[in-house]
């Protein structure tokens, strides 16, 4: 029986599954509605020889493309009540997110460039731990591929990654400055763009 119910996840770090996959990016469908990790987060797909990606886009819409959501909350006291009073929404809406592939693991070694093949469909997608974030925060080479993609959100993604890395690794005190300088080298000929990104990495 095809059941739209999902089993509650035993693994708290498991976010969803890969539903589309190509050389540069993979798309994950979240188990939970609105369960996408924040823009710029580092995630990995696949339990063995994981492929790493930075969240670069997320999207919530109806499962059925022919059915569009309609406003339901007029007269309701809060937004929560919209979902409360229409519980089928949790089943009929789905959140997906795309990640730009930034590296992969082979024999417990993480390498920060594109893997030979993208992850398989239905690979489990999980959040990453501190040491993994540190590996990518230190190299930052992958930034150039995100910047080169020139999506409207590319700059925000890069800035968000640095913000998250700094938050996740408070003991790495020089990380913000170091990352900024790497970005300056990558964007040497476009100070305007660099400035825009630097503004998105506040000091906290």
């Amino acid at each position: 029986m095809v059941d739209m119910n999902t089993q509650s996840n035993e693994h708290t770090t498991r976010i969803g599954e890969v539903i589309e996959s190509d050389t540069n990016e993979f798309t994950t469908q979240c188990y939970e509605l609105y369960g996408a990790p924040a823009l710029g987060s580092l995630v990995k797909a696949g339990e063995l020889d994981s492929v790493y990606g930075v969240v670069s886009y997320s999207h919530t819409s109806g499962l059925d493309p022919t059915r569009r959501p309609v406003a339901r909350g007029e007269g309701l006291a809060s937004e929560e009540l919209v979902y409360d009073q229409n519980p089928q929404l949790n089943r009929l809406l789905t959140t997906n997110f795309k990640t730009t592939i930034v590296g992969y693991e082979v024999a417990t070694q993480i390498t920060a460039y594109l893997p030979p093949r993208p992850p398989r469909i239905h690979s489990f997608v999980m959040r990453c731990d501190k040491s993994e974030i540190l590996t990518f925060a230190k190299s930052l080479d992958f930034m150039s591929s995100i910047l080169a993609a020139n999506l409207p959100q590319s700059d925000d993604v890069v800035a968000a990654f640095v913000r998250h890395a700094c938050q996740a690794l408070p003991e790495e005190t020089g990380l913000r400055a170091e990352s900024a300088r790497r970005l300056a080298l990558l964007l040497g000929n476009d100070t305007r763009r660099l400035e825009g990104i630097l503004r998105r990495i506040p000091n906290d």
Partner: protein
Amino acid sequence: MALDLERTAKQLDAMMSGLNNFSSAHTDRLAEAVRVLKEFQREVFLKKTDSSSAVFQWTPPVFPEKPSKSIEEPSLPTSYAVIGVDGSHIDVNRHIPVDCFLINTGTAHLRYGNKSEAHLSSDPRLFVPPDETVVSDPDNPHKVLQIQGTILGAIRSVKEIETLAEALKKSEPGSFEDIPTVGLVDGTLLLLDLLRPGIPDFVIEAVLVEGFISALNDIKLAAQEKKIVVASYISLPGSDEIIDGIRLLACPYEKSDCLYHCGEVRKGARPCDNSAEGILDRDLMSVIVKDGERSELFSSNFQMARNYYGDNEITFFYLNTGYEMARVEMPSWASLNQQNVDLVHSVVMEQCRKGRGYPTALMEAHEQAVISTADRRYFLNLVEEVLENNGIEFTTSQKDRSKRLRWL
């Protein structure tokens, strides 16, 4: 472009002018019908029914005491659930060598209140030859009826009600899940198609009795221990059962012997026509029942149905959802308890609000059940593949082939 729209439009125009002539007479008749209903007296009606039972050519339902009453919308319980079930099918395709068909039932189980939740699912069921694609006479195994067309439709209804029964039975009595639950299906609970002349008895037995009624009985049994109730929702109901009763009341003759009195009279000129011809139940109820309110309960009185349904006898009321006048049916064992009827009333009203004119649970069930064109094509391709893998050559009629391929 295969349809000549210009020629079709002209014919539509002609139809419209015919309709316009029609409307003023309709208004008068409706007013008359309303009057008759409002002046209803039970004893009069019962007497008339008795005296005319054999000769009145229509079958009026059992009327309530005050048929022109409009009942206020009751309040909803804090926590309740609705289970909507709908079905869809891929009919037997005579252009392919195998007589299989597919019924897909969709279920939407929606729970409201202190822990709102939804479960949406669908259950596809493939019926394969030789046994599943026919109804056979248990006394005479060679007597079979191919399942297709109307019979298939009826079997689908059976599957729907069986699925609903399963869903309603699922929760434990007294448990967290045991909250007032309304099971809804779309369309009438009266499978009159099966009761038409020409349908063999064994078919009625197999489909109606052992399928449909049996499932209703299952629900009835479960309802003894849990707060569950079953109903069906009919949108844009086309029935005129109550009008049949109006006819009876409007008939001037003491014994309404239609053949005798009006056998030679043209339709429309008969005395009862003044308050009935061209009027539907929903037209009548639109005047009577206010927004959000329901009519009193009526009870269907078809002879054939009585034979088979027993205390699953179908009662119905009309509900003004605010969007339309809908007909809601319940088995009599359920509607005996006014609380049940109130529950159905309030739940269906709320469902129609959420669903903007149609109960959400049925809409979602429909979405789960529906088989898109692409799905149908895929199904056929799948069948083709399976057959070929098993060495059976898939020869199809050229008509089907051209429908599927649609080349330029």
